[in-house]
C-alpha cells in the first residue's frame, strides 16, 4: 500500500517538530489526501461515515466507515483512508481490504482534539476514489487527567 510509507514518514517528521507547530489544518489534510489519491478526482458518495455529531469526550470517539460495494474480485474496496483537519497530524487510519471481507466496513475509536471535520476516502479496485465527511462537535477536547 503506497500510502503507508508516506504516512509513517510524515508522522515521524511531525513528531520531531516543536510542540506548538504540531497542528493539522484543512490545507495539510488536503495535502495528506492528495498523497493518497495522487490527483485522481474524488467523488462524493458510496461511503457512509458514522461518527456521533456531538461527542462528550474527544479521547474516545466511536467511528465506523461502510462503503457500498459488492466486494467481488471484479469490484471491491481496496482501502479505506480516514483523515482529520485539526488534530496535531492529519491521519487517522488506513485499512487495506479485499473481497475476503465480504463487507467494506471498519469500526474503531479515534481521538479528536477539537470541533472539526473528519473525512473518509474509499479507494476502489477500479482506481476511483469516493469520499464522505462528517463534522463533529467535541464537548471536551482530547486531554488526559493524570492520577493525582
Amino acid at each position, binding site marked *: 500500500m503506497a500510502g503507508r510509507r508516506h504516512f509513517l514518514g510524515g508522522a515521524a517528521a511531525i513528531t520531531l517538530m516543536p510542540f506548538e507547530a504540531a497542528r493539522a489544518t484543512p490545507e495539510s489534510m488536503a495535502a495528506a489526501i492528495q498523497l493518497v489519491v495522487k490527483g485522481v478526482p474524488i467523488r462524493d458518495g458510496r461511503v457512509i461515515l458514522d461518527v456521533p455529531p*456531538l461527542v462528550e469526550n474527544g479521547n*474516545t470517539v466511536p467511528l465506523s466507515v461502510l462503503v457500498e460495494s459488492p466486494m467481488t474480485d471484479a469490484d471491491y474496496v481496496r482501502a479505506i483512508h480516514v483523515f482529520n483537519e485539526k488534530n496535531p497530524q492529519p491521519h487517522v487510519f488506513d485499512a487495506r481490504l479485499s473481497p475476503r471481507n465480504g463487507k467494506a466496513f471498519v469500526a474503531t475509536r479515534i481521538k479528536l482534539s477539537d470541533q472539526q471535520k473528519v473525512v473518509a476516502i474509499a479507494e476502489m479496485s477500479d482506481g476511483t476514489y469516493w469520499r464522505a465527511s462528517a463534522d463533529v462537535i467535541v464537548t471536551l477536547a482530547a486531554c488526559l487527567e493524570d492520577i493525582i
Partner: protein
Amino acid sequence: MKRAALALVAVFAASFALAQGVKDERRSGYHDMGPALQKMQDDDSSNPGMLFVQKGAGLWRTPAGAAGKSCADCHAEGSMKGVAARYPAIPSGGQAPVDLEGRIDLCRTENQKADRFAPESDDLLALTAYVAQQSRGLPVSPPADPKLALFRAEGEALYRLRQGQLNLSCAICHDDNAGKKLAGIAIPQAHPTGYPIYRLEWQTLGSLKRRLRNCLVGIRAEPYAWESPQYVALELYLMERARGMTMEGIGVRP
C-alpha cells in the same frame, strides 16, 4: 450519636417513601451519556473495561505471596456474585469498614501473605473489576450492619460539607444541580453503580477513589490521603443513597 440516629431515620423514611410507590427520581450517569457511549458500555466485546476483567480473571487464578495461594483457592469461580453490591462493609473481626479494594488488600496481606497493592495499580483495578463485574444486574444492597451507621453518617456529613477554594459541597452539584450542564457535560446524580469505571478522561479503568479525588481537586480542595477512611465513609453514604439501583458492571463514562 443522635446525628447518626437522625440520619438513619432519614434514610429509612426515604426507603419507606420509595416503597410506597413515590416515583424514583434517581438515575445513573449512564443515562446522561449519548447512545454511542451507552453502546460501548453495554457491549462486552467492545467495552475497554472488559480487558481489565479478563486480566483480573487471570490474576484470580494466580498464586501469590508467601502462602502461595491464589484467590481461586478459597473462592470458587463465580462466588463473588453480589459482593460488590454490598460493599463497603466491616470485615469480620474488624472495627471499621473497608471498600472493595481494601477488602482485596486484606486478603493479600492476611491470607496470601503478600504485599498490599499500590493504590490505583493495574493489578488491583483488574481484580476489583473482576469482582465488580459479577454483581452486574444486581441491586445495590448495603448490608444491614448497625455498626456501619456511624461511618455512614460521617460520609453524609462529608457529602454535605462545603470544601475547597470554590466552597462547594458534593450535594450542591449532585443533589441541587444534577442534570444541569457544567463545562458542557451534564452533572450526574453521582451514584456509584458502575465502578470501577472506564473513564474516557483517564483512557483507562479507575476506582471511585480516583473519581472522588478528581472532584476534590476540581473544587480546589486538598484531596484526602489515598488510605484515608473518608473515601470509604463517602462511598458508604453514596451506596446507601443508591440503594436498590442496578449495578452496571464496568461502566463507561466520559
